[in-house]
């Protein structure tokens, strides 16, 4: 058993949120934003977005959430000026979304990395660096840093057509960061990534936020959104259904959660009594199961630390004594 005793009392089951220091200045603002897709003859096909009003503030991670076809991607494309609004406006850094100059401060990772397959990673990043009119020295510097950051040193001179999906995704992320942007738009950042990649992507996003960058991401991977976002907007069929802080939205008001390690059975019994004495109702008290993600990451981490060793040999110990943290359930 772990000797560490660590009692955490948290309001939310996410470990993510240290309070974002949001400066109130608004980076993206949509006003009554609507988009109707029409066919060639001007007939209405889809009402993709209906009167969306959101504000993304500086330094926060804002999530757009919703099922397929809910208008997430449309919103991002409208913000980028890839689409023109049917009515309403989008302001990015107080400029109209149609203006090219705003792009100086924006990084965009599209849903799939739409890159030129005949370029190598280095050439790709250099090319996008040129599009920001960066000098040769600056480009060299940033390209090598970014390649290192996304972990593609070994493959930087290979053409992108030889890349796996995850690798392409990394190059995509690197190209989005080539200009050291203030605002980063990520369209489904974790699709196509394996669990490690997903974890790294999430850490990266948090790291960028810590550098003071504003991030707007859209996803239908709820877990990802929950893990990283400060605020989310939930869209469905083009309409905004919910908007708020992740903690607030997810907080279940009348349930209290206690995590503790090193408790004896007696102590647990005592806690249960304590709860009932105070008129509370103990709903469950047992050892939590780790998530598949944690398990997977543990395995990989260990195998990297001790290459070649068979995981199975030490497995029973952990498997049986699974709760490394003996925990109090919820009361």
């Amino acid at each position, binding site marked *: 058993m772990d000797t560490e005793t660590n009692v955490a009392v948290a309001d939310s089951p996410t470990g993510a949120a240290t309070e974002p220091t949001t400066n109130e200045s608004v980076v993206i603002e949509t006003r009554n934003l609507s988009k109707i897709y029409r066919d060639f003859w001007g007939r209405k096909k889809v009402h993709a977005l209906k009167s969306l009003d959101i504000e993304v503030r500086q330094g926060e991670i804002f999530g757009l959430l919703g099922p397929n076809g809910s208008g997430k991607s449309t919103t991002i494309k409208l913000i980028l000026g890839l689409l023109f609004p049917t009515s309403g406006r989008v302001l990015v850094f107080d400029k109209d979304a149609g203006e090219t100059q705003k792009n100086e401060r924006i990084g965009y990772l599209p849903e799939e990395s739409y*890159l030129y397959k005949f370029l190598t990673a280095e050439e790709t990043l250099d*090319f996008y660096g040129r599009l920001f009119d960066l000098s040769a020295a600056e480009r060299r510097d940033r390209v090598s840093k970014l390649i290192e950051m996304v972990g593609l040193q070994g493959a930087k001179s290979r053409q992108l057509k030889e890349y796996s999906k995850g690798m392409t995704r990394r190059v995509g992320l690197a190209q989005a960061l080539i200009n050291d942007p203030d605002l980063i738009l990520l369209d489904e950042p974790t699709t196509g990534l394996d669990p490690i990649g997903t974890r790294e992507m999430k850490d990266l996003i948090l790291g960028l936020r810590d550098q003071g960058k504003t991030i707007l991401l859209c996803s239908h991977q709820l877990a990802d959104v929950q893990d990283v976002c400060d605020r989310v907007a939930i869209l469905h069929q083009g309409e905004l259904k919910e908007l708020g802080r992740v903690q607030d939205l997810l907080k279940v008001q009348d349930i209290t959660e206690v995590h503790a390690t090193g408790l004896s059975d007696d102590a647990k019994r005592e806690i249960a009594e304590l709860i009932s004495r105070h008129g509370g109702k103990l709903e469950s008290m047992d050892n939590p199961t780790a998530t598949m993600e944690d398990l997977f990451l543990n395995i990989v981490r260990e195998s990297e630390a001790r290459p070649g060793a068979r995981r199975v040999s030490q497995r029973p110990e952990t498997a049986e004594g699974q709760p490394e943290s003996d925990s109090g359930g919820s009361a």
Partner: protein
Amino acid sequence: MNLQPEDFWSFQQWFLRPGAFLESAALKGIVLFVLAVVLGLLVGYVISSARYGSGEGFYAVARAIRDFFRFDLPGTAPRRVLALARLAFKEAVRRKVLYVVGLFVVMLLLAGWYLNPQSDDPGRLYISFVLTATNYLVLALALFISAFSLPEDIKNRTMYTIVTKPVRATEIVLGRMLGFMAMGTVILVPMGLLSYFFVVRGLDHTHYEVEELVELPGGGYEGETDYVQFHSHKFTLGEDGLGTTNSVRGHRHVVIRQPDGSFRIGPPEGALRARVPSYGEMVFRDRSGNLDDQGIDVGSERLAGGYGSAGVARLIGVTGGQRKLLHGYIEGGTLGAAEFTFDNVTPERYPDNIPIDLSLRAYRSYKGDIETGIRGSISMKHPSKPIESNPIPFIVDEYEVDEKTLPLNIEGTDGTQTRELNVFEDLVDEEGRLTVIIRCLDRGQYLGATPSSAYLRPEENTFAWNLTKAYASIWLQMAMVTAFGVMFSTFLTGPVAMVATAVVVLLGFSAEQVYDTRHYIDAGINRGGGPIESMVRLIRQDAMTTELDVDTLAAKVIKTTDAGIVYVLDALATALPNLPKMVGTAEFAASGFDIFGALLARHATATLGYVVLAFIISYFTLKSREIAA
């Protein structure tokens, strides 16, 4: 080579047309530009008012124009343009367009299959073959690479990562155009070099032996070379053992008798040339010696042709009638003559003699002596004084450039006395002008001439340089097609953009025919009529020149509709680049004429104009387009 009046224009004459501004290229450019702006505003307004409502639409158009001048044009950064151009270039390379050079090599290797080795003028054949092949290959290539690239990027959405960077629409368009033009250049250079070697090596040959050698009584030799590459030459050597062969298949050889009695025959000379002509003013004199501006019309020649190109003036009907130069004929054995007055005849330009080239046509009213050609004479005359040299007789070589030299000292008449004349002292006036008179000596036969039929040849350029100029002309066409391809690809899908560009090219190529058709309709000449009338005639198997044989009402409907169609086509063809004129430079190179600098400058200016126009249109269409739609 038969030149049209406009071929003689200097760059400035073409651009401004002093005295006839309506025909000028400058006006055409201005009109095109204004039209593009007006149409652009109109279409822009219609589209944006459909998008945003009529009031907002107006502001949207105004904003688009403001953005162009305030942000996008000044914001265009060379580094971004170059990056995009490099990308376009790489993409073209990846599409294996360089294989076209390989295809060209194969075409050259197999040339023996379709180039007649027994041709009378192999130089012309080879040169026009390589230039035509290059021209069409490169145009087709430009069509392909330029029309598909942008739509493909939009379809693959690679465009998303470009337009979300601070990239201006100007840069995207310019980058494509420059990238593809660079690609075209990279392809044209090896093609040019290959062509040069193909032509030079293909024409190179040596005769080794001498046959039928006869020693002349007065010293010197007469003989014939051996038969190599389907021809042999006759030659005469002087007493010094030096001489040249006669010209066969466009070239001759130098023959030298060496001290040991053997003969050395040099490489072919004169097959690849770039004559720099100095043309003069021409007038005709009729059979009684009176001035006549046309010469005699010997038949159907004068019927062909319409307006030629005269820009806006022709389109709005101010200029009508004949614009093409046709041969006027002079009658033999009379006072009829063609007089050419040349400028700038100075001892510096013509130190030894005056080379003059003739390309005359002959018209025979009776068979005469079929063994030999029609006889003519050249004499030199003072432009204003009655001083004239004695005529130098010659036999007209109808289908070739007849190269003559006029001596600097010649006997002639000064008023009434006969004396030895010096060309520069007696025949050239103070302004350096000299008149050359051409007459036909055979009674009842006729010689035809145009202003390009006789010219002095003060100098020659090298063939290599001339071929370079011909390739520059192809380059310009490639640039033009690329610009149009990119323009169409900003708002059409790849295949449609390619077809649209092809239509522009084809309409450009048939511009002259469209002009002609309109001329016939305007002038009421029965020449088959417009498209519908021609169709009716085809089905009814009627001849072109008969009256249309349908009832009056039907004829009226058909002719009115046809006129509408032809006028629209005419307007379009006038607006489009005159590509056949540019392809025409190949004819210069093939005929052994130096391509006029003015002509190349005109093509370059026109190309630049069209590229700029295409660039501006592309900018606005791309800018107003939803990339993600």
